[in-house]
């Protein structure tokens, strides 16, 4: 497992290559990449600044990753989440899961991003024509995470 919280961008192709290198037990990999949109709530977004809680962020991501491994037979998990100033089109987050079979890879990837959105301590500040505004948590994100309740 690998958890990385970083300001720098990442190369999805290079990450995928490293993730699967030398592993012949993997039958499928699911990759999720989250991007910065140029519009939110009907308003143009020119930039987004991601703040986080160093220490707790890594701790929470590790806990979410451990929970995914408990629920599904995974060969490996990779989570990269960026912080700092990002612009529309920039990559924010990468979640990759590898398993012998596709169901575990798909489901665990979805679980990881759904839980991450409601548990990992990140906050988005959007720059719009009307000034800066903090993004509010969505009920739909809580509902998405709640689907995974056991």
């Amino acid at each position, binding site marked *: 497992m690998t958890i990385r919280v970083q300001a720098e961008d990442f190369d999805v192709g290079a990450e995928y290559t490293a993730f699967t290198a030398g592993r012949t037990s993997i039958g499928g990999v699911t990759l999720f990449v989250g991007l910065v949109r140029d519009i939110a709530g009907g308003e143009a977004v020119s930039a987004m600044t991601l703040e986080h809680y160093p220490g707790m962020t890594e701790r929470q991501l590790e806990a979410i990753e451990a929970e995914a491994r408990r629920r599904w037979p995974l060969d490996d998990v990779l989570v990269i989440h960026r912080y700092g100033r990002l612009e529309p089109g920039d990559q924010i987050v990468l979640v990759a899961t590898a398993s012998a079979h596709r169901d575990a890879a798909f489901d665990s990837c979805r679980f990881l991003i759904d839980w991450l*959105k409601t548990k990992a301590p990140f906050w988005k500040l959007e720059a719009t024509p009307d000034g800066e505004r903090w993004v509010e948590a969505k009920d739909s994100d809580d509902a998405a995470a709640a689907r995974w309740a056991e």
Partner: protein
Amino acid sequence: MKILYFAWLRSKIGVPTETVDLPAEVTTVGALVDWLKTRSPRHAEALANSKVVKVAVNQEHVPYDHPLSATDEVALFPPVTGG
């Protein structure tokens, strides 16, 4: 006790962190939030709606009835919006 603030709670209160001496009767997270409101009008305004004030103790999410000890690292923040 060290208190950390994030996102709009930090900008409303005006500092990222502060160290406070808790009165003996403040023994839970909920009591701490109520006590912090009395520190300044900025605190009172930032902490007015407890539905959007989440708390972590020693970097774990906790409910308002969670007990506190003097060496805890306590963080207050809005609902998270990563991903």
